[in-house]
């Protein structure tokens, strides 16, 4: 479980996060949604320790990150898996080497054991035949799956995903969403997904935090978000033409 309490973050005069309080549950896919510039990515970078908040605390399983020693921070980071927006795979390494990378860095296992674990994870993300290829030789969806494999290979306790569906077609996006959700349940991970993809909300939004202008404007789950009367949430959700038409059709009883 990750708990964020009264989090504030500014860049110069610009106040980005204005007191965020939220609990990210273990074994659930926790979604942070909001328009561009609402503070989603800043929140995630604060949680990852890449930005230092001015006020507030971030607690990992009840322990405040700000009280961690450098060694504890390093240990924590080894328990974190991260799926970047563009995948962030290492170009100079093959798919197999990319997935093996965290294991090589942080474990003392023999090469055969590492290979076995890599094969197991690649099979889990349906990429058993692509191990010898380089990231440039595979599609965007496959790159995302490799990035997921790399993120979970060390059996993390926390998984962060920064707009996992960006640049993917709707079908591949659904595959990635479902994969993230399945792995969250399977490995009992605290998963945090930053997104503004409405399909992701429908697919995997077990717990949702809606940010607007750096403030937590609404919380709930996928069944509640389409029923809420909160104007700020409905403005965001129904800004998509498709959802507008679905709502209209529902109203007309079609």
């Amino acid at each position, binding site marked *: 479980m990750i708990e964020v309490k009264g989090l504030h973050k500014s860049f110069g005069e610009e106040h980005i996060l204005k007191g965020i309080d939220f609990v990210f549950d273990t074994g659930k896919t926790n979604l942070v949604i909001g328009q561009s510039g609402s503070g989603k990515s800043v929140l995630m970078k604060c949680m990852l320790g890449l930005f230092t908040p001015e006020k507030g605390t971030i607690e990992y399983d009840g322990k405040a990150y700000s009280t961690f020693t450098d060694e504890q921070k390093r240990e924590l980071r080894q328990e974190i898996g991260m799926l970047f927006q*563009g995948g962030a795979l290492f170009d100079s390494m093959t798919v197999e080497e990319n997935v093996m*990378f965290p294991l*090589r860095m942080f474990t003392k296992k023999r090469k055969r054991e590492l290979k076995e674990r890599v094969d197991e994870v690649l099979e889990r993300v349906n990429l058993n035949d692509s191990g010898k290829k380089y990231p440039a030789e595979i599609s965007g969806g496959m790159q995302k799956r490799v990035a997921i494999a790399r993120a979970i290979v060390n059996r993390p306790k926390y998984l962060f995903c920064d707009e996992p569906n960006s640049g993917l077609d709707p079908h591949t996006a659904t595959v990635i969403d479902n994969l993230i959700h399945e792995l969250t349940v399977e490995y009992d991970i605290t998963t945090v997904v930053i997104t503004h993809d409405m399909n992701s909300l429908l697919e995997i939004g077990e717990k949702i935090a809606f940010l607007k202008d750096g403030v937590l404007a609404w919380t709930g789950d996928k069944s509640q978000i389409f029923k809420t009367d909160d104007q700020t949430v409905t403005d965001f959700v129904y800004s998509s033409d498709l959802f507008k038409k679905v709502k209209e059709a529902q109203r007309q009883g079609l």
Partner: protein
Amino acid sequence: MKYLQSIGEYFLMLKGIFGRMTKRSVLSNLIFKEIDELIIGSLGIVAFLSFFIGAVVALQTALNLNNPLIPKSLIAFAARQSIILEFSPTFISIIMAGKVGSFITSSIGSMRVTEQIDALEVMGINSLNYLVFPKIIAMLTYPFVIAISMFLGILGAYTAAVMGGFVAPDIFVQGLQEDFDAYHLFYAFFKTFLFAMILATIPSYHGYYMKGGSLEVGKASTTSFVWTSVVIIITNYIVTQLLLS
């Protein structure tokens, strides 16, 4: 003010490089990879340039020696002095700022743009140590490149002077040995070592701290070449003033 900030950032980067070390087995593989890319990969162009510049230095000297009172051995003497003191250590380092420096900046810059450096940091890896330290160690072998350049430069001078019929082989060899001062070699290799550190760290700085997209990677490579060359030239002047004057 911006330059002062950059200088401060550069020295903080140097401190960061020697911070938390990457796992030794991983590091040793990276060092061999960097030696292959930065050093072995540059040998061809260094050999080509050294041989022909050495030849041109000998030709120019020979063609300008019109006074019969000046001994022909001066062709070899002039070639040796210019190659050992300046051409090989300094001129080749400027070329390496273009070749190796741009490669370092663009490869680290691309990693910055595509969030690969963020990925390393999130995993708890000291990205500066992982990316820059192997380059520094690889560049410790750079004086060998300069030694090869010196040898080939003098070989080029010998070939042009002797094959061109400007001087007899024994007179050329005599000129090479004339007033030889081993301290000049120490001076050349000392500054080569400093240039190697400059070549490894300044381009890394420009790549690591770049902001923006792929267009900025190109701009960072150009800026990196300019600043690496400027720092090499200034260092060359200071070292020459301190060690030779």
